[in-house]
Structures are given as structure tokens and as C-alpha cells.
């Protein structure tokens, strides 16, 4: 990720980078005991899965220099074995700098490898180790600020439902949190004079599950579509840990709601910059997310190791 403010080019690069925070869109959904975790939009999910986001459309808030970007993204997650998965993601971008013609093109290709570290049903807890790679020269480097260097990003993703709280606290039990902790290690220390720092990435999704309330705590009479809604707030930040000042943290806050259905889910969130350097105003994102394991439970929805 670019984080520099020394010249116009650097600001342009920052604006582009802000549109693709490394703790970006999630790919997985899953279960831990009776807890259903939906796929979240901003933060990665702590699951390997067979799923696809097609599409995810983001209208981002204006960057610090006023540039505005619209993204159309496709994500695919596939299990190799029940505990090992891979991901691939790319996006088409339209960047409208202030006072300049709009530019369009592909962003950097991102891939990931994941290992399901644990799933604890009774405590509704899970953990996942991942290594994401953002590949050099796979997007429009000059026009859109896509990286000319590869970045390795090891991550630890986790989830925890509060269903194991005492039953005397019934209305807290539908709460859950998922989170990502990770680092970016760019393979070049600078690009065209702009430093490429190592970054610490951290993001969380705070969810209140109406499906959980209905099935496991108290049937309050919600019916469709409300019994499938999961209101949530996602936050994600990137803090440089070398080469530039740590005060140059950027981040986002995304309140919204997810509706989870039979074969797919739909999510919609507002996008709010979390720091002055993250931009201003607001944007929005919608995601149509398909559960391949539910659509094709006996074929491509299974882990590849179980195809034969």
C-alpha cells in the first residue's frame, strides 16, 4: 500500500490505495456450533468456503485529494480440503480525479491461501491462518496506481459468538464479532520515489444476528425477511510500521445489514472514512454473495479432495 504525502503523485497513489484497503472484502461464510457467520464485506471471514461474490459494487467516498473511485469486484473462494482453501479476487475500477479525465481499468490481482486453524462449536469460536498476495503489474500501474510490486500479507482471522454467555443474559447472546489481524510486506521498499511501508492491518465486524435470536434465544415473532437480517458494523484500519509515520493511519467504518438466504446473501453498507487521511464524505457498497456449497452440494460445492 502506498502511504506518502510528499507530492501529487503520492496523493494520487494514496487515493487509489484507500479504495482497496488490505483488509478488504470477505469471501467465506460458515458455522461454529449453532452460530452462522455471514460473509462480511469489508473484513475477511474466518472460514474456508466455497463461495463467490458476483458482484460487489462500491462507490467510495472522495479521497483526501477529492478523487472518487467506483469499483466492481469479483471474489471466488474454493476449498481444496475441508480445512484448506484458496481465494482469488480482482476488480474493475473507475477513478475520477478532481479536474482530470476519469480513468478505468483493472486493479491488482489478489490471491490467498487459507488454513482453518480451529472451529469450536460450543464456544462458537473459530480461527484461520491466511497468506494473501497482491500481485505486481496485474493492474493499471500508471493510471490507477495499481502496485508495481508484489505484497505478501499473512493474516490471522477469528470469530466469536456470544452464545455461550449465561442464559440470564439472553439478548446479548446473538452478538458476534469477527476480526482480522495481519501485516503487509511489500517486495519493493519504494516505487518511483514513494516509500512502500510495511503495514499492520486490523479490522473487526460486530454483528447482531436476528436468525440466532429467533432460533436459539427467544422467538419474538420475526418473519421473513426480518428473521434473516444481521445488522453489523465493520471497521478496518491500516497503520504503517516503517518508512512513513504511523500517524498516517487510514481506515473505514461501514455500518450496514446483511440478509442471508438459501443460496445467497445480500449485503449493503455505508462507507465512512475513519481518519482525516482516509478521505471525507461518504460512500456505499452492495454485495451479492453466492453460496456455491449450497447451490452445488454434491459437485463443485464440495472440497476438491472430495470430488472423487
Amino acid at each position, binding site marked *: 500500500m502506498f502511504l506518502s504525502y510528499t507530492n501529487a503523485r503520492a496523493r494520487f497513489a494514496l487515493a487509489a490505495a484507500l479504495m482497496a484497503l488490505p483488509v478488504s472484502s470477505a469471501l467465506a461464510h460458515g*458455522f461454529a*456450533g*449453532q452460530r*452462522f457467520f455471514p460473509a462480511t464485506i469489508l473484513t475477511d471471514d474466518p472460514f474456508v468456503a466455497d463461495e463467490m461474490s458476483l458482484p460487489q*459494487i462500491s*462507490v467510495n467516498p472522495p479521497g483526501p485529494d477529492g478523487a472518487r473511485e*467506483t469499483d466492481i469486484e469479483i471474489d471466488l473462494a474454493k476449498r481444496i480440503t475441508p480445512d484448506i482453501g484458496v481465494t482469488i479476487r480482482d476488480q474493475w475500477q473507475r477513478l475520477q480525479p478532481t479536474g482530470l479525465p476519469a480513468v478505468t481499468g483493472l486493479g491488482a490481482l489478489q490471491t490467498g491461501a487459507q488454513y482453518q486453524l480451529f472451529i469450536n*462449536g460450543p464456544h462458537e469460536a473459530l480461527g484461520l491462518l491466511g497468506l494473501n498476495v497482491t500481485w505486481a503489474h496485474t493492474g493499471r500501474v500508471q493510471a490507477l496506481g495499481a502496485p508495481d510490486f508484489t505484497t505478501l500479507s499473512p493474516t490471522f482471522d477469528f470469530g466469536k459468538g456470544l452464545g455461550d454467555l449465561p*442464559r440470564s443474559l*439472553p439478548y446479548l447472546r446473538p452478538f458476534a464479532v469477527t476480526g482480522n489481524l495481519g501485516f503487509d510486506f511489500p517486495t519493493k521498499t519504494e516505487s518511483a520515489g514513494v516509500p512502500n511501508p510495511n503495514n499492520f492491518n486490523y479490522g473487526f465486524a460486530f454483528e447482531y444476528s436476528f*436468525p440466532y435470536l*429467533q*432460533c*436459539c*434465544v*427467544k*422467538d419474538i415473532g420475526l418473519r*421473513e*425477511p426480518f428473521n434473516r437480517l444481521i445488522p453489523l458494523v465493520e471497521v478496518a484500519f491500516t497503520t504503517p510500521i516503517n518508512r512513513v509515520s504511523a500517524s498516517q493511519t487510514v481506515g473505514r467504518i461501514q455500518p450496514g445489514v446483511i*440478509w442471508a*438466504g*438459501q*443460496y445467497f446473501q*445480500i449485503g*449493503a453498507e455505508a462507507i465512512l472514512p475513519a481518519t482525516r487521511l482516509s478521505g471525507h464524505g461518504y*460512500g*456505499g*457498497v*452492495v454485495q*451479492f454473495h453466492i*453460496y456455491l*456449497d*449450497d*447451490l452445488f*452440494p*454434491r459437485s463443485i460445492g464440495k472440497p476438491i479432495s472430495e470430488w472423487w
Partner: protein
Amino acid sequence: MRRILTALVASAAVLGAAPSAWTHAFLDHASPAVGSSVPASPPVVTLWFTQDLEPAFSNVTVTNDAGQRVDLSNAQIPQGSPDELQIGLKPLTPGTYLVSWHVVSVDTHPTEGTFTFEIKP
């Protein structure tokens, strides 16, 4: 922002046309209702799911505060109601009871859950 609103409207349209069942079998509702208080001991606990169940791999138990089984160990999926799971109960005294279920849907996805109901004194 207009594009976002358009997308939201389109999403709502899709949502309205969505199928009514989950592929994973989730608990839709139960009798006695999840978290409810009832005035007398019910003869059975009935659970309705969002997906048809595999009888060989679906079960439910009911226990009291002490963890003792109070059901009749006769869990069954009634004929003609493949999304329903029932179990008979012994006569229950006032107290709180835990229903624990574990089912496999016809497309082989397993799910599980628990809830309580209370019999008023």
C-alpha cells in the same frame, strides 16, 4: 449515490423473489416456542426446519436443569412432514428445560442448536 440506490432497489427485488427455505436446515420455529413460558407440561416438543431432514441423522433431546433426559427417546420425523422433528415428553414439573437438536438436511449439510422453554409454577 444514485447507482447505490438503484442497486439497493434491485437487491430488494431479488430479496422479494427469494426462495423460502435455507439449504442448510435451520430451525424455523418450535412448539413450545424458543424461549417461551408455557402453563403446563406439553406432551411433545415439535421443531420445524427450513429444509427437509435426513431421518437417520437427525435427533433431538430434552433435559431438565439437572441434565437428566425428560424425553421419551422417540424422536421421529412424521410421515408427510419431512421438515419436522418431534419427540415425546414425560410429564414435566415447573422449571426450565433444554432442547438440543442435531439434524442433517437432505443435501447433507449438518446443523445443530439448543434452546430453552419454561414451565411456569
